């Protein structure tokens, strides 16, 4: 059974005013346990709105969201328990830190779960380790950290609840290349070592191509594609039409192909690209 499923999910902002805006429209998706889903879509396509439904922060205007087959809005208590199983980390989460020390901020979630002091400590240390925060950082004030460090603390705050489904809304936005890589690696590590489901909203086609097992493409509040990485990125024209793109490296191969070189176009990572180029050069006798 799917761990998360939506049925005809729609949401309208500011219903009943002239600013009425349908943010997502009739979404039907189902996500299996252990999957890594990448969500892409142009700005304002409804990605953030969609993920806020998955842990019950927004109540659907129409339709339902199911967690393990049960409607997450069926009762207040259930919504609250779902929030511990579906951990959502917002876009720019560093603006939500509030405690006096990093340790206490990360402990906020586990404390709300009602864990004992000992369990809380275990969870916090484990989460801090996952995101690569050093021990001595834990006693600092979160406001004295750099932007990237704050981001890690915020993500650790969600991971510390050890959710079965981890949702991150643009976790790497505004970070330096190294920060982007470490955070996306750390998310993948989390998934592999805990077997959790991970959903990541991202504007980086590279990140999505590298990690995701399935890609959800949103366009103007509707689902455009929801399939495997290869299937999605093979629709180059359509993706460009809706304001997206394929990974840069894939673009190069599509370009090479259109210039008459016999190359594959389903290349998404630099490693694959290297292999394919070496093959091409070999065939043409340029490499021994």
């Amino acid at each position, binding site marked *: 059974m799917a761990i998360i499923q939506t049925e005809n999910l729609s949401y309208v902002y500011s219903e009943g005013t002239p600013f009425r805006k349908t943010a997502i429209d009739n979404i039907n998706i189902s996500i299996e346990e252990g999957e890594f889903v990448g969500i892409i879509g142009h700005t304002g396509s409804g990605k953030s709105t969609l993920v806020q439904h998955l842990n019950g922060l927004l109540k659907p205007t129409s339709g339902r969201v199911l967690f393990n087959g049960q409607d997450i809005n069926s009762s207040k208590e259930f919504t609250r328990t779902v*929030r511990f199983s579906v951990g959502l980390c917002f876009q720019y989460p560093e603006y939500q830190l509030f405690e006096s020390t990093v340790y206490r901020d990360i402990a906020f979630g586990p404390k709300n779960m009602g864990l004992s002091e000992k369990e809380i400590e275990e969870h916090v240390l484990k989460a801090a380790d996952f995101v690569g925060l050093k021990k001595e950082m834990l006693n600092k004030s979160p406001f004295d950290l750099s932007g990237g460090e704050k981001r890690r603390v915020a993500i650790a705050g969600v991971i510390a*609840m050890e959710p079965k489904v981890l949702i991150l809304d643009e976790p790497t936005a505004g970070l330096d290349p190294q920060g982007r890589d470490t955070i996306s690696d750390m998310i993948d590590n989390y998934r592999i070592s805990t077997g959790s489901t991970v959903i990541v909203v991202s504007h980086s086609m590279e990140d999505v191509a590298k990690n995701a097992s399935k890609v959800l493409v949103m366009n103007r509040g509707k689902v455009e594609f929801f399939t495997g990485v290869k299937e999605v990125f093979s629709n180059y024209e359509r993706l460009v039409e809706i304001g997206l793109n394929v990974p840069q490296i894939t673009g190069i191969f599509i370009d090479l192909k259109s210039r008459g070189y016999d190359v594959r176009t389903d290349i998404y990572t630099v490693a694959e690209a290297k292999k394919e180029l070496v093959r091409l050069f070999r065939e043409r006798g340029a490499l021994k």
Partner: protein
Amino acid sequence: MIKDITIGQFFPGNSIIHRLDPRMKLVLTFIYIIAIFLCKNFLAMGTMLLFLILTVLLSKISLKLIAKSIKPVFIIVLITSVLQIVYNNKGITLLELGRLHITTGGIFTAVFTTVRIVALVVASSLLTYTTSPTLLTDAIERLFSPLKIVKINVHSIAMMMTIALRFIPTLIDEVDKIMSAQKSRGADLESGNIIQRGKALVPVFVPLFINSFSRAYELAFAMECRCYKGGEGRTRLKEMKLAARDYIALFAILACCGVIILSNRLITAPEQYSNILDSFLRFVL
């Protein structure tokens, strides 16, 4: 939830009411509110109501929004009406329940108070619904600019108001976002007694204040970078100019005032209606 607040909200449009000069709108609203309280008879009240209804229709603001603006004062209206009906014993008694007398005088006053409060709220909401906050503060600055003579820095006050108004929606958005984020970490903001709820708000207000302060600094820097140095010698991109429609509007409201003054002199006040009704009833019985 917190998003449903419509106070001071602006709904862009292109109706004639939107296009009125904001200074004129401000003055007209002011005159209108005073006039509402001078009405002493049904003719005057009817005229003022008609004027308001026409303005609402001309503004093309949906009636739903108008109804929304009245909602917050509904309780006040209800309480004052009930008090009037219970305690005002003028006129003839229509119903007697033990010590409770329901009289014509009470009912008239209740109706008048209700109409007054509703008209007051609708008129002032209409002002903010149809005027952008920037134009509104601009208008205030100009209307009060004579106060410069007594060394009141009208420009700074107006600028502060503009900034404050500008950031209300931003802050509401932010509260909403922070609350969502903390709820995602299992914060329970909706149950428990007052003390527990107060405590639960700490995770919301700490980041809110911190972000507001840093935003205030950033805004100040941004303004300085654009050479903002206060109002001295500042010129404007758009000069406000009164058009024919502004004079027509002024004329219309003055005409309404004329009706009020005349009718107040010529027609008896509602308290006296009850006397007439009284003698009429006596005559019939």
